[in-house]
């Protein structure tokens, strides 16, 4: 800042600290709840200092689930399903988008612009607005209750294609020309030159798409009826909505915590790629 105004600087820090606290508050309460036993949960108010049942709760939640009366399988399994879903969606999106972006930027062929617009238009069709017909297609293809059903329909992505297209357009033309003179054909150029150059874009996209895949809610909700394909995010909501869940808030909230830990870790650890991915996919 151009001048010193200690009061303003103090005010800025105060606001930000307040913000950080507000942002952290629900997670803190959740974390505390997950360290107590069920009996403690029944007395109002809920505790604000940690208890000593965290490991016990963790084992119960991860391995046995919330008990026979609950409508959800062990959290460990749901975490695994979410991981499969998030990783498959992220890698799948990146793979098909980088290929189609490569075709659209680097090849001259009759239907190029048609394909471009077809991909572009999918930006305008979020899964929520066409949920029933999409569900029907997946049902007709026999993909209900399968990893394929969970992931494949969400893999096509105009955003990822755009990001790669944007990036390819910034790659100097001379690089392609030099490669052609060096004798590289289209696939060789793609593998040897373009792919290594796209590393940072790929990493940025991976972060964004991993979060997107992990946080899917509506799609797994309609596509899975078999518990063994439940994902953690939809599973949590299911647990909360079960009538007698109130008694098990310590375990439900631990599960909620486990549902947010992986994507939060990805964002915090890969913060630079995350910011880059976020800002660039929206350009």
């Amino acid at each position, binding site marked *: 800042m*151009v*001048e010193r*105004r200690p009061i303003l*600087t103090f005010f*800025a820090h105060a*606001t*930000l600290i307040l*913000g950080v606290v*507000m*942002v952290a508050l*629900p997670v803190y309460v959740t974390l505390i709840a997950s360290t107590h036993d069920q009996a403690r949960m029944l007395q*109002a*108010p*809920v505790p604000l200092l940690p208890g000593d049942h965290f490991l016990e709760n963790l084992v119960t939640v991860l391995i046995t689930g919330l008990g026979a009366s609950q409508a959800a399988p062990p959290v460990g399994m749901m975490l695994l399903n979410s991981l499969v879903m998030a990783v498959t969606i992220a890698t799948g999106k990146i*793979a*098909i988008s980088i*290929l*189609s972006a*490569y*075709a*659209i*930027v*680097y090849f*001259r*062929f009759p239907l*190029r612009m048609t*394909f471009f617009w*077809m*991909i572009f238009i*999918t930006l*305008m069709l979020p899964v*929520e*607005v*066409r*949920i*029933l*017909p*999409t569900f029907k*297609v*997946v049902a007709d293809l026999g993909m209900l209750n399968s990893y394929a059903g969970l992931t*494949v*329909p969400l893999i*096509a992505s105009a955003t990822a294609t755009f990001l790669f297209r944007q990036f*390819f357009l910034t790659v100097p*033309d001379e690089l*392609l020309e030099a490669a052609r003179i060096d004798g590289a054909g289209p696939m060789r150029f793609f593998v040897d030159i373009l792919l290594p150059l796209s590393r940072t874009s790929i990493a940025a996209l991976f972060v964004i798409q991993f*979060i997107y895949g*992990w*946080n899917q*809610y*509506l799609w797994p909700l*309609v596509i899975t009826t078999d518990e063994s394909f439940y994902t953690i*995010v939809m599973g949590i*909501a299911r647990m909360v*909505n079960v009538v007698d869940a109130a008694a098990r808030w310590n375990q439900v*909230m631990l599960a909620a915590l486990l549902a947010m830990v992986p*994507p939060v870790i990805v*964002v915090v650890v890969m913060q630079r790629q995350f*910011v880059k991915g976020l800002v660039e996919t*929206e350009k």
Partner: protein
Amino acid sequence: MIKRVAFDHAWLPYVLVAPQLAITIAFFFWPAGQALFQSVLIEDAFGLSSKFVWFENFERVFGDPNYLNAAGVTAVFASCVTVASLSIGLLFAVMADRVVRARHAYQTFLIWPYAVAPAVAGVLWGFLFNPTVGIISWILKQSGYNWNYLLDGDQAMFLIVLASVWNRVPYNFLFFLAGLQSIPKSLIEAAAIDGAGPGRRFWTIVFPLLSPTAFFLMVVTIIYTFFETFSVVHAVTGGGPGKATEILVFKVYSDSFRALDLGGSAAQSVVLMAIVVSLTVVQFRYIERRVHY
């Protein structure tokens, strides 16, 4: 659009776009087409035959007080979330832009809720405000305020707005911060030399320069509140109490999967598509203008 030197290859480009195109057609175009098609048909009770009814489904939808209620709820919800998350995001961004020390730490501690699924965000806040065990509802009760979002529609609305705002502020914060940092320092310095204090500089220099970012974020946030917040509503209030938090996209879902009203839900889908299309067009028109500025 295309490289100066492009490959000419008879079949390779088609092979390269094929996977994306196949998925796009199977899971985007075909269902969207189905929705359009269904929206002008009415099926009989057994699903054996259907007949073409022009816009009857749409008339039915727009004549349905529940639909109009959902539209109203969506409007209230969208404007509350948009206004709150944009202003809070901007406030944090301006403050973070001002501090030098620990800026990066603040950024880290402010952006992580973006990674939390909206449904989980709803669960976290729902726990705090849970009528029986929630700490905040306990405090409210102690101070004489009767809190039960399961019974009070306004309280339920407040809760899903709160969870969505919490979930969305990081995104707006990041974009505002990026916008602030792209304003040339010399501009601020020139204004300071001209005698403008920090407040005046913000309103006369910084804010006008940020307005494109704000506009962009507004459109993006509206799209977010229309669609991605389905899970908050579903996980926290289930559209209730009554229909106090039934937003449009939630109604499409419940009409599709619970009421099994094919034509009606298809018509609702088409209306929603029209909304996204117009919002996206607005967004792109604006981006184009910015690019050719």
